[in-house]
Structure formats: structure tokens, C-alpha cells
């Protein structure tokens, strides 16, 4: 009998005992896990041995960071919990960027990490790192399991915590001796979380007050974040906007929660948001925030943000309420339930002057660019992608200009359609996230709209897409710069382009070397044909668009300015 087995006194039937690694796999299956991402290593070998014939699809990234972003993309695309495994030490350390990305964007992930034997912990053993210490600030919860008897319950709790309330990553650290220790696994579904409570049902009185505020508002704006998507509340949102007649702007992560083709859509707000969205927020008399957190890229200068408005804030996380702005009517709970209750209490109101004002702003300052230019404009590539995919593709992005242009020029029509690193702004997210999304939705068209510098960071994962024949598409908006860094250097650092350019490889050749299709596009006239060819591929495909090198993202609210103090409006107006 193992020394740390829980069944100490009565005679043990050896056949009823299971090793920890098997208990882990059984608990993953109990939690409905069908797919995992991860990378093996010394102290997770017992677990990998049990995964060898488990009915779980396993995807090996080339790097643990990639694996974590894949689990993230899988989770965002499917709404399920993404699962990633890594070994101790470097494996666990490599997860941190992915965990922090998921933490900031509230994505449910369970990360399982191997750890050195319990008696070696703290001795600087080979490949030892203080994984729970390192990942504590970038996880919703983490813990180490030191007794095999606690394994099933802890992993069950990890899934529960990751997927309920405000979702987030949970890490469970698994010493190798616990993976091989035996105990009886009775299949009970216990949990023990005295400190974890989730309030889902909104306070009825607060909801009534919110409804009354909406009914009496002349100039309301709905400001919607990723919380509406993770709460699966898009349908309730649509009904509410129709019944109460409300304009809707979304954050980057909120894109897709509301059909952008509808006249009530104000598109994205914020630093690079639509001028009409920013103006509407600044002039509204009631701001209805749902599943959004008043991030500094949305509010710009806090003091002047929506300063004439009464603010309703609907959020599942009480700590988000009044964190950045003082909220007048907080409603804590699940957006889906609260919006449904709100729906019953709101009345239609025409608000003609308000919608007229919005329509005028929309007409005057649409997102635009020089359509006559001879060069390949990045915005043109995205518009053409949107046209050829009929707004139906699942889009991931890198971070920076490529991400903002995507947010501005692709028209999102359904939730979970845009997968982008918003809060943390993790360059290199696009490719592995696309792989994760494609795994979740084998039949969907999944396109990573990336920048050259973002793509450089994780392009090794192209080999993963090839190995598992995941037909993702990568559109590199290649300007040979870290575009957004260069834009800031142009605008605020006197065009001193300090270390913001790279010598890039020929991406089409790289794609071919990895065993798939690569296309280079350097003429504007070739853009539609190349996209058509790309979309026809049944395998991964990389298209390298040599775009206008010094194109900027407009409009832009410079740091420290108010949301309605946007640069670039003259240009948009002249192109309108």
C-alpha cells in the first residue's frame, strides 16, 4: 500500500485503487473535457501515460505559451473550459503569459502543471519553480495538491471556479508523487469551497430602478463588453435594444455581441473607437454598462468620461463596480438573467432627436481610409475579407494596428466571432488562438488577421496547425514595423523609430517550409484573388500582404485626453 493512501485500516482490495494520474483523467472526463492542449515533460509523464489511451483529443503546441493561448481560443470560441497541461519549472513558467491573457479577458481555463516530488519542493530541484507563487496574480485561483485523496475534488473545484461567476484561469499544481500515489476513487462529486459564492440573480429593486432610468432617458447609450458574450446574453441584448430602442456601442471584446449591421449599432468605442460612439457616450444622459469594466482604453480621461450621464453598471463581479468610475445604479449578477428581467420592465421610447444626432455623427465621421490609394491599404484587405466571408468568419488577431483595423473594418454579427487579447494586449495571441478556435469548430472559417511583428512571436505554432491539419488562415498585414509602436513614435516621439522595425523572413516561404500553403501579395489588384485562393484552401494558409508601410489607425484619442478629443477626424470627414 502506498504510504499516503487514505484507506489505512480496512483491508484494501488493490483493484479498487487508482493512481492519481488516472483520477485526474477520470475527473477531466467527468467534467466533459473532450480536448486538451499541452506539452509533456519529466514530472507530468504519469499523467501523459494515462492520457495515451484516454478518449480526449490532444493537441501538442510547439511552446507552452502557444498551448495556453490555444486553450484560450478554444474556450472563447466554444464557451467551454479550455484545458492546458505543462510540466514543472520552464513548462509552468511558459504558461504565465497565456494565463495573464485569460485572466484579463475573463476566459475559463484550467491549467494543470507537473511539480517535483513533494519531499523535494523548496530544495531547488531540477525543473522546480514555485508555480503557485508565480501564477497567483495571473489566475482566478490556484493551488497545489499534496494528497492523492484531494485530487478529484480539487480538479472538480478548478472547473467550477474557472467557469462560474466572472470566468478566469485556474491552475492546479500536481507533484509527480501524487500522480502515482493510489487511493480509492469513489466517484463522489463533492466540492468544498466555503469562500466562493457567485451572485447570479440581480437585485429586483435595483433592476426596477435601472428600468425606470432607461424609460425616462432621452439620450441613453448601451456600453457592452465581453461579459455579455461570456454570459451568452446576446439574444437578451438584442431584444432589449429593440424593445427599449437603445443605441449600442461595444468594447473590443464586446464586438459580436450585437450585430454591427443594425442601425442601432455604434460600433466600438474607445481610444481607436468610432467617433460617433465616443461622442454619443460623452453626450449621453444615461450610460448602461453591461459586462464591461471601464478600462482606460475605453474611458480615456476618467474625470471627463460621460460626465453628464447617470451610470447603470450590470456586472457579475462586484469588485468591478465603482472601481474606475462612480456608478449610480449597480446591479450585480448574471447579465443574461438581468437583461431578461430588465426587458420586462422597459418601454419603447422613440428618442428621435438623439437618434438623429447619432445618425449625423455617423454620416460625418465614418471609419474610412484612402480607397483610391495605389498601395495595399490594410483596411482594404480587411474589408475584402469581410466581404468574401460574408461577415461569417471567426476572426482572431494579433495586437496593435492589425487588431484595431480589424475591430474597425470587419463587421461582426454574432457572439464569439472575434477572439482577441484585449486587456493584456498579448502580441502573438492570434495564431495559437486561431488554432484553438479551429479545434473547437472544425467546420468554421477561422482567420488570424495578424501583424508581422505579432506573428513573429508565435509563428512556430504554424507547425502545430500543419501537424493536426487545422485549416486556419493567416493574413499578415505586413508593414515591416511594429506598427502601433511606430505610430506612437511618429506622433509623440518626433518620428524617431527606435527599434520598432524588424527584418522579416519571407512568410510564404516559411509556410511552405513548414509544409503548407504560402501566398505573397504585393499588388492591390491581387488582393481579392489571393483571399479567394486562401479561402478555398483545405489546409493552413498564410497570406503575406505587403501593406502601406506607414499607415496609421484613426481616429485616435491621445493619452491623457478626453474621449471626444480625437485626432484624425478631419481626415475621416474629408473621406466621408
Amino acid at each position, binding site marked *: 500500500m502506498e504510504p499516503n493512501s487514505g484507506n489505512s485500516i480496512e483491508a484494501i482490495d488493490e483493484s479498487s485503487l487508482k493512481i492519481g494520474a488516472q483520477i485526474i483523467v477520470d475527473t477531466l472526463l467527468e467534467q466533459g473535457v473532450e480536448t486538451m492542449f499541452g506539452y509533456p515533460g519529466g514530472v507530468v509523464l504519469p499523467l501523459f501515460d494515462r492520457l495515451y489511451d484516454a478518449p480526449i483529443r490532444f493537441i501538442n503546441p510547439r511552446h507552452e505559451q502557444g498551448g495556453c493561448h490555444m486553450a484560450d481560443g478554444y474556450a472563447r470560441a466554444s464557451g467551454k473550459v479550455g484545458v492546458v497541461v505543462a510540466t514543472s519549472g520552464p513548462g509552468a513558467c511558459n504558461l504565465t503569459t497565456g494565463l495573464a491573457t485569460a485572466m484579463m479577458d475573463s476566459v475559463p481555463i484550467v491549467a494543470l502543471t507537473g511539480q517535483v516530488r513533494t519531499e523535494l519542493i523548496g530544495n531547488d530541484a531540477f525543473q522546480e519553480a514555485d508555480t503557485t507563487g508565480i501564477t497567483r496574480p495571473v489566475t482566478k485561483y490556484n493551488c*497545489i495538491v499534496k494528497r492523492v485523496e484531494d485530487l478529484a475534488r480539487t480538479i472538480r473545484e478548478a472547473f467550477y471556479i474557472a467557469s462560474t461567476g466572472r470566468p478566469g484561469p485556474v491552475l492546479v499544481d500536481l507533484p509527480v508523487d501524487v500522480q502515482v500515489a493510489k487511493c480509492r476513487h469513489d466517484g463522489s462529486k463533492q466540492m468544498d469551497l466555503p469562500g466562493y459564492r457567485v451572485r447570479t440573480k440581480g437585485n429586483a429593486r435595483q433592476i426596477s430602478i435601472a428600468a425606470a432610468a432607461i424609460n425616462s432617458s432621452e439620450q441613453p447609450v448601451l456600453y457592452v463588453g465581453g461579459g455579455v458574450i461570456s454570459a451568452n446574453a446576446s439574444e437578451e441584448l438584442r431584444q432589449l435594444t429593440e424593445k427599449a430602442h437603445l443605441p449600442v456601442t461595444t468594447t473590443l471584446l464586446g464586438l459580436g455581441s450585437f450585430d454591427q449591421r443594425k442601425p442601432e449599432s455604434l460600433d466600438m468605442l474607445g481610444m481607436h473607437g468610432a467617433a460617433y460612439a465616443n461622442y454619443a457616450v460623452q453626450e449621453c444622459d444615461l450610460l448602461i454598462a453591461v459586462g464591461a469594466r471601464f478600462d482606460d482604453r475605453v474611458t480615456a480621461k476618467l474625470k471627463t468620461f460621460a460626465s453628464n450621464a447617470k451610470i447603470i453598471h450590470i456586472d457579475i463581479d462586484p469588485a468591478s463596480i465603482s472601481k474606475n468610475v462612480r456608478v449610480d445604479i449597480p446591479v450585480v449578477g448574471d447579465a443574461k438573467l438581468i437583461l431578461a428581467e430588465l426587458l420586462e420592465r422597459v418601454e419603447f421610447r422613440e428618442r428621435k432627436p438623439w437618434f438623429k444626432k447619432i445618425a449625423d455623427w455617423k454620416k460625418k465621421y465614418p471609419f474610412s481610409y484612402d480607397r483610391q490609394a495605389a498601395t495595399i491599404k490594410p483596411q482594404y484587405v480587411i474589408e475584402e475579407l469581410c466581404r468574401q466571408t460574408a461577415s461569417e468568419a471567426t476572426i482572431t488577431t494579433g495586437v496593435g494596428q492589425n487588431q484595431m483595423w480589424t475591430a474597425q473594418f470587419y463587421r461582426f454579427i454574432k457572439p464569439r466571432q472575434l477572439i482577441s487579447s484585449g486587456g493584456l494586449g498579448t502580441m502573438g495571441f492570434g495564431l495559437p488562438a486561431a488554432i484553438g478556435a479551429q479545434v473547437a469548430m472544425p467546420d468554421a472559417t477561422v482567420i488570424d488577421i495578424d501583424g508581422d511583428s505579432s506573428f513573429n512571436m508565435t509563428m512556430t505554432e504554424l507547425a502545430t496547425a500543419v501537424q493536426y491539419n487545422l485549416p486556419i488562415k493567416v493574413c499578415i498585414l505586413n508593414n515591416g514595423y511594429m506598427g502601433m509602436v511606430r505610430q506612437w513614435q511618429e506622433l509623440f516621439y518626433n518620428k524617431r523609430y527606435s527599434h520598432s522595425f524588424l527584418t522579416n523572413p519571407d512568410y510564404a516561404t516559411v509556410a511552405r517550409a513548414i509544409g503548407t500553403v504560402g501566398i505573397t501579395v504585393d499588388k492591390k489588384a491581387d488582393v481579392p484573388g489571393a483571399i479567394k485562393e486562401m479561402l478555398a484552401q483545405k489546409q493552413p494558409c498564410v497570406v503575406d500582404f505587403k501593406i502601406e508601410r506607414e499607415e496609421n489607425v484613426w481616429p485616435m484619442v491621445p493619452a491623457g485626453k478626453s474621449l471626444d478629443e480625437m485626432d484624425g477626424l478631419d481626415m475621416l470627414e474629408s473621406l466621408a
Partner: protein
Amino acid sequence: MKHIISALVENKPGVLAHVAGMFAARAFNIDSLAVGRTEDPKLSRMTIVVVGDDKVLEQVRKQLAKIVPVVKVQDFAGQPVVARDLMLIAISAPAEKRPEILSLIEMFKGKVVDIGQKLVMVEVSGPEEKIEAFIDVCKPYGIKNVVRTGTIAMPRQAKTEPD
């Protein structure tokens, strides 16, 4: 303003690190922190004294409550509580000064817990102001060492102290 926050937490490894890490990461200032077991072996009590305005304190309470192993958070601001610090203080006490020092100790209801050739170690407990006052009156004699537990507190039934 100074607030005494009382947090009931699961008695698990890493909880203190989690709480301390959250305070550091969100730039909240801890004035003192005292941790001890409760009557329930599965639970510990953290008493945290925090300085900040109402907005900061609201975030402190919410962020604490958000930590999974934190079971309950109370802010004692504005309610009657018994708040106590315990201090051990070593005072330099040559023979000729000892009577003076001993009478001070008596006035503060302190307890001599160790006497050496040159030093006397005193145990004093009470509200923070009393502890601070005792330190002040000891300064002229020379303080060699001070160790304090930080504040612990409990809400009271009666409105004022019996004495």
C-alpha cells in the same frame, strides 16, 4: 482614514501570500496584519489595518472577498469594537532609573516579563494609542527593541468599555 478589516479565511497554504500579493499588486497600504487560528481548525482570522479613502476601502473589501479562500470580510469602521495591540518592549533600565520605569509600567498596566543587568522587557497590550503613548514615555530611557503583533479586533456588544 484607518480601517480595521477582519477576514475569515480558509486555513490553507498560500492564503496569506494571496492576500498579501493582492494588496501589493493593487497598491493598497497595509498598516498592520495579524493572523491566527480560530476555534474552527479549518479557518483562520486575518485582521488587517488599512489606510485609505472610502473608494480605496470599498475596493479593498471587494478584492479581498473575491479571493477564493477568503470566506468572509468585515470592515469594523463606524461600529463599536475592542481593538488591541500586544507589544514586547525592551527598555534600558539602569538600577537608579528602575523605580521610575516600574511606576510607568504600572500606570500603563504593563507587565515585566524579563529583567537583565541593563534591560527590562515589558509586555503591554491595549489600544494602539496606548501602545504608542507607552513607547513615547519610554523613549527618554532608551528603547532597545520593540516587537508588536499588529491590531486584532472584535465587535463589542456594549457601546463603551466597562472600565
